[in-house]
């Protein structure tokens, strides 16, 4: 018995279609999950959730996390981690705050803050790339160092009040006026704009340049990349410097938003940034981090916090729910890839 060629083709294309759909859903499952979450909150809180004002709010609330997560993505493309970003952000805030308190100009304080971030990133990069300590251990060590430095420089206290110039605190609260929507004044927050700029830069670097392609090559197979002539050590070093600078930008944004510098105020950023990158990775077929997907992860975290607060759900339950959704998304993604 022979099957007609026609029937075989049909079967193949039918199966091909199914595979294509499955792949499509695998890739966009997290996005669909996000849409479901948004639809749910819109249904529950029709007046206050789904409006321009609240969404502008959310973008400002996730802006600082967004910067850290975007630059963390670069490190994680290499299969590395940077655990020091949170305490780095705190330390840079303290450095800038101390300089401002001592009367240095705003530009000097911010510039030196960024330099400290780059320097800290360089230290991480040297430890990981040249001395070849595992990124987990190396950045765990620098995490502790940066925390100690922040406490030491500040004497354990918070820098606030007149020490922080109003130009800086107004920046953290202000934005570009867009217009009146539903009787509410809408401004695009400056912090959101910074995050958008960082996002675009990281996207171009990762997706549109030779540098980015080489990073993905290293992440795919470090040995092959090295044999292929990629300067692996230099590129890993640079990834950590960029991550350090991202943490520094976030630390300065925090000082601006809080109008104060506290030696531990950025510490919580690290775990959430890594969670956002992991959430984003569920959208990639190869399980690679991509910065736009990372931003979706950041938005999921931000929307959950915003929506659950609006629904007046207890904060402890919020944490259980948020953690559960992260685990669920990553589990489903890894199951479907088997």
């Amino acid at each position, binding site marked *: 018995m022979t099957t007609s060629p026609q029937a075989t083709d049909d079967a193949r294309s039918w199966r091909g279609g199914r595979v294509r*759909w*499955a792949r499509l*859903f*695998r890739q*966009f*499952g*997290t996005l*669909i*999950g996000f849409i*479901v*979450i948004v639809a*749910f909150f819109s249904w*529950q809180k029709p007046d*206050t959730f789904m409006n321009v*004002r*609240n969404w502008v*709010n959310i973008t*400002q*609330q996730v802006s*600082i996390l967004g910067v850290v997560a975007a630059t963390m993505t670069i490190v994680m493309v290499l299969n590395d981690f940077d655990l020091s970003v949170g305490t780095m952000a705190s330390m840079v805030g303290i450095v800038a705050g101390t300089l401002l308190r001592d009367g240095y100009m705003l530009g000097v304080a911010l510039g030196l803050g960024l330099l400290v971030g780059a320097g800290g990133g360089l230290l991480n990069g040297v430890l990981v790339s040249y001395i070849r300590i595992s990124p987990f251990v190396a950045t765990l060590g620098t995490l502790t160092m940066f925390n100690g430095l922040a406490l030491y420089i500040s*004497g*354990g*206290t*918070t820098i*606030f*009040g007149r020490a922080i110039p109003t130009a800086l*605190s107004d920046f*953290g*609260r202000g934005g570009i006026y867009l217009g009146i929507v539903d009787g509410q004044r809408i401004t695009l927050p400056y912090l959101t704009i910074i995050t958008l700029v960082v996002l675009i830069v990281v996207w171009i670097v990762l997706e549109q340049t030779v540098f980015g392609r080489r990073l993905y090559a290293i992440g795919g197979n470090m040995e092959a990349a090295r044999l292929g002539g990629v300067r692996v050590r230099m590129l890993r070093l640079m990834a950590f410097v960029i991550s350090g600078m991202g943490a520094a930008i976030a630390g300065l944004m*925090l000082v601006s*938003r*809080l*109008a*104060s510098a*506290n030696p*531990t*105020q950025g*510490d*919580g950023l690290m775990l959430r940034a890594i969670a956002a990158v992991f959430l984003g990775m569920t959208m990639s077929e190869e399980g690679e981090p991509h910065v736009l997907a990372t931003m979706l992860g950041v938005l999921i975290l931000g929307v959950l*916090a*915003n929506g*659950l*607060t*609006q*629904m*007046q*759900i*207890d*904060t*402890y*339950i919020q944490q259980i*729910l948020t953690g*559960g*959704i992260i685990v*669920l*998304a990553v589990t*489903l*993604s890894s*199951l*479907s890839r088997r």
Partner: protein
Amino acid sequence: MKRTMYLTLVIALVLAGFAASAVSAQDGDAPSVVVMTPWLAQPGTQLMVDAFTEYAAEKGWDVQVIDTAEDISALISRMEDVALQDVDAIVINVDPTQISAGLAAVAEAGIPVFGMDSGTDPLLVANVTSNGYAMAAETATYVVDRLNGEGSVVMFIFEPYPPVQKRGIIAEAIFNNTPDITIVDKITPSFDAGPLEGARNAMEAVLLANPDPGSIDAVWAAWDEPALGALQAIQAAGREEEGIVIVGIDATPQARDAISMGGSFEATVAQDFPGIARQVADLVEAYLGGEEIVQSTYYVPTKLITAANALDE
């Protein structure tokens, strides 16, 4: 396909469950009050929040507690979220200078904010707290009275932190105003290994420098940890029998425990956390009832803790 369906289904079910419980918890007419803090893990904050929740339940309010686990930036975000809600009042336990962006968002929404052991700020209706000056005066006069106005005192102070700095100022003024009291040393304990260890090391040095029995009569500490450190140093030096009087401030559980033993550590001062919570609840009630609140800070009396009441709660 399956995965997406599962994901969608699970998220929808979980959220729907919470929606149902959240909706059922909301009562149409009852005033809703949100308590917001990054410090719920701190024992003092916990006592206040628990007490406030209890009083609010007695008054028939809906209370939501939001804790951001030491993350002050997240607290601002949550304040912006709450500003969009139909809530009647917000109670905060956090330094208002650090959350001015959040206070501005809430003020714009016209929601009144009350401080519960917070700080003074023009955007707060009022703050209820303990009087730090009075707490220091209470322990300093305890020392003066115990020494019958005569003796040498070691002080443990900490100037970088304003709420503790003001305690030192008052105690020093009281000692200086007592002619026969001498301040032997004013020590800022090193924080490298924690204030307890730092105070212990410093006190050991002071004891070595003043070896004669009776050369030190009292230790006044601006908070409990250096008092405990001084106690350990005196015990380690075998000079417990000299009757050196130690006092602290804050009434931490460890300090209460030491005081209850009846040794050198004789007294500390407790903030009345449930009292602060009750005062806040009463203020919120008065405000919602249309009363005008003029006073910006309310002080709730503190309580001297000695061996007689150290283990009472």
